[in-house]
């Protein structure tokens, strides 16, 4: 790229930022936030788009903490080295106090231990699920700077067990994605199935990118389970389920939220998914969740059905609300401390859109607290930066994804307690 082109591109960027701010309020300052997300991976790009979407909404409400927000996005390539370097560059060169990301736990963790905690930067991940973060926080090594909007696997797995119990399945086989999320899911779901008296006949790991999963599927099939539990992503999930069904496996299936995708439904075929029930953490029964859906559909012309989109949106919104609550020129630690003020269960409810952000600004300016009602629910962090959430049981239908049952936060907590 020639120098003039670089300058031109830089100028264009500066111009577009200026024009955006001009459209809202006459502000002349810009605060940068960092995002390290795997944009070179197919499912990572929509997650980044959704984060930018939240930033745009906040900028339309006049920005946060008195300034327009610019999200500087860096690709992790799902490579820990690259992700850590990108995070370090954002913190040192761009001076960000808030970092969104990463997606993979194997990337988020070294960023946390070697960049954000030493640098006093708040890190908010949409999608990292490893239980290692909870342990790290319990040891007091995250300094309260770590948050994630991805409900721990505990909620999913408990609701999965509830579905099996309600359906009266006696035996079940588990296929899980062979990464930290899948391994956690497999371990927890086995414990939860045992607690409700469902026998796990076998638990088979599914590795990414294999041309065929015949061996794995045959292994699961040979145990003759009444039902199948799937903790898989759409790509390998499609391949594995196709082979499962073509080999005569049962169509009684329970799916974790990662399979909540139109692509999976279309590629497997709806006629085979009649008895398939999915679980997910749910939106609250509030107008704000509908507002998010409506705004998302209007912006992207599709339903927010991909993995991690709602989580990414909430992560971004909460981070920006916390920046607003912490005020101008707040440090990362101050912003992290302010998260409690914007996710306060006793606070005033605010919706997940521009209007919600505007009203939150007024309440926070008056010294009040707000309860952010986001795309994944009334997000509430515990002391380790983890979230619990209401849950939903869903199934596939002609038009997309249909809700079967809703479990409120209290229902979920009560059921989890009954499993202990």
């Amino acid at each position, binding site marked *: 790229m020639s120098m003039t082109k670089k300058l031109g591109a*830089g100028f264009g960027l500066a111009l577009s930022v200026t024009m955006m701010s001009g459209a809202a309020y006459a502000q002349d300052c810009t605060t940068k936030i960092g995002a390290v997300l795997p944009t070179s991976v197919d499912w990572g790009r929509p997650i980044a788009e959704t984060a930018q979407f939240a930033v745009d909404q906040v900028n339309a409400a006049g920005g946060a903490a008195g300034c327009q927000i610019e999200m*500087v*996005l860096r*690709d992790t390539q799902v490579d820990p080295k*690259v992700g850590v370097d*990108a995070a370090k560059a954002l913190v040192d060169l761009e001076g960000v106090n808030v970092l969104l990301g990463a997606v993979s736990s194997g990337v988020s963790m070294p960023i946390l231990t070697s960049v954000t905690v030493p640098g006093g930067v708040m890190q908010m991940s949409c999608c990292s699920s490893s239980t*290692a973060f909870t342990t790290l926080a319990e040891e007091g090594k995250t300094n309260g700077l770590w948050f994630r909007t991805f409900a721990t696997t505990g909620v999913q797995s408990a609701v999965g067990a509830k579905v099996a119990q309600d359906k009266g399945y006696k035996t079940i086989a588990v296929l899980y994605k062979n990464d930290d999320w899948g391994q956690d899911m497999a371990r927890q779901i086995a414990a939860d199935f045992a607690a409700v008296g469902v026998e796990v006949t076998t638990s088979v790991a599914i590795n990414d990118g294999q041309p065929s999963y015949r061996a794995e599927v045959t292994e699961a099939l040979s145990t003759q389970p009444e039902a199948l539990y799937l903790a898989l992503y759409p790509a390998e999930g499609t391949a594995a389920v196709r082979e499962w069904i073509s080999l005569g496996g049962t169509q009684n299936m329970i799916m974790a939220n990662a399979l909540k995708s139109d692509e999976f439904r279309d590629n497997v075929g709806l006629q085979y998914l009649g008895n398939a029930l999915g679980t997910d953490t749910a939106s609250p029964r509030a107008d704000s969740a509908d507002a998010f859906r409506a705004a998302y559909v209007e912006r992207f012309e599709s339903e927010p059905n991909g993995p991690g989109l709602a989580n990414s949106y909430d992560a971004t919104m909460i981070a920006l609300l916390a920046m607003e609550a912490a005020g101008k020129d707040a440090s990362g630690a101050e912003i992290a401390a302010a998260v409690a003020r914007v996710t306060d269960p006793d606070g005033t409810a605010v919706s997940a859109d521009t209007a919600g952000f505007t009203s939150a600004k007024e309440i926070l300016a008056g010294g009040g607290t707000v309860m952010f009602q986001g795309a994944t629910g009334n997000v509430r962090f515990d002391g380790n930066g983890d979230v619990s959430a209401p849950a939903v049981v869903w199934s596939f239908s002609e038009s997309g994804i249909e809700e079967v049952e809703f479990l409120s936060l209290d229902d979920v907590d009560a059921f989890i307690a009954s499993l202990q």
Partner: protein
Amino acid sequence: MIGVISYLVFFATTASILAIAVLGLNLQWGNTGLFNGGVVAFFGAGAYGTLILGGTPQAGHLGGYGLFYPLALLGGMAIAGLVAWIVGLLTLRLRHDYLAIATFGVAVAFENLMRNAEWLAGGAKGVRGFERPLRDALGDGFTYNIFFFLVVLVILIATYLFLERLVASPFGRLLRAIREDEEAAQSLGKNPARVRLMAFITGSVILGLAGGLYGTFYAFVSPQDVLPTLTFQIWAMLIVGGAGNNRGAIFGAFLIWGAWTASGWALSRFAPIEAQLYTGSVQFILIGSVIVGMLMWRPHGLLPERLVVSQRGKTPSA
């Protein structure tokens, strides 16, 4: 300003660690002609070994021996050497592409072992809970990063000097002789199999050293750190820098890692806003093009190997 320096120190630390790894590969490929396609297995063995030996106890898997740090690092290197010894015994009779495929298989097996054997190294969650040495005394911030960089730099220089001595020695000549014509070396009464194994193990111990430092720097290692991408990156550094030339190996590491990170930074800063989402993919294209271009126009690298005629009584410079 302090931010720029802080970042440069961080960058130089990563680049220096990678440079040590490239030096290890250079001994194997550049000097001895062993096509090691499983760089990450030895790098990973060093990283996992160091963290398991030197870390705090973790529930559910091996570890928590809390060894004095230099011992843990040496232990990591020893584990890498042990893996190399076993792999070498099994595969070094293979030549060229066959060796590459066999070692590549070893690396994939290593990654899968780490991903699945939760009792060994935590499975996909990886190994954490490692306390970086002297952290209590130096804190967690900039001072520590400078200190750690200096340590890595000293180790890099020591490795470089060691390898320079090694390749200039009669043993180094023997390595090149085997690389050029194994049968000729054998006809002079040398034992190529043994020498190949020694070079393979030495190079792998250096790769393990780099891995140990890498694990220490991040205080964390997971199967995601030992994906085949890393093998590819280290090979790219060696090819661009110049195989057979230790200075080229170091130069290549800094250059490729610099290009890798700078292209990401430049794209995030200068690419038009609507293209921001695609910069990750653009970066792959850019880096791939650089390597293809190098192979087409400078196949011997930026600092090619200097061929020397060894003469009695004069110190050869390699």
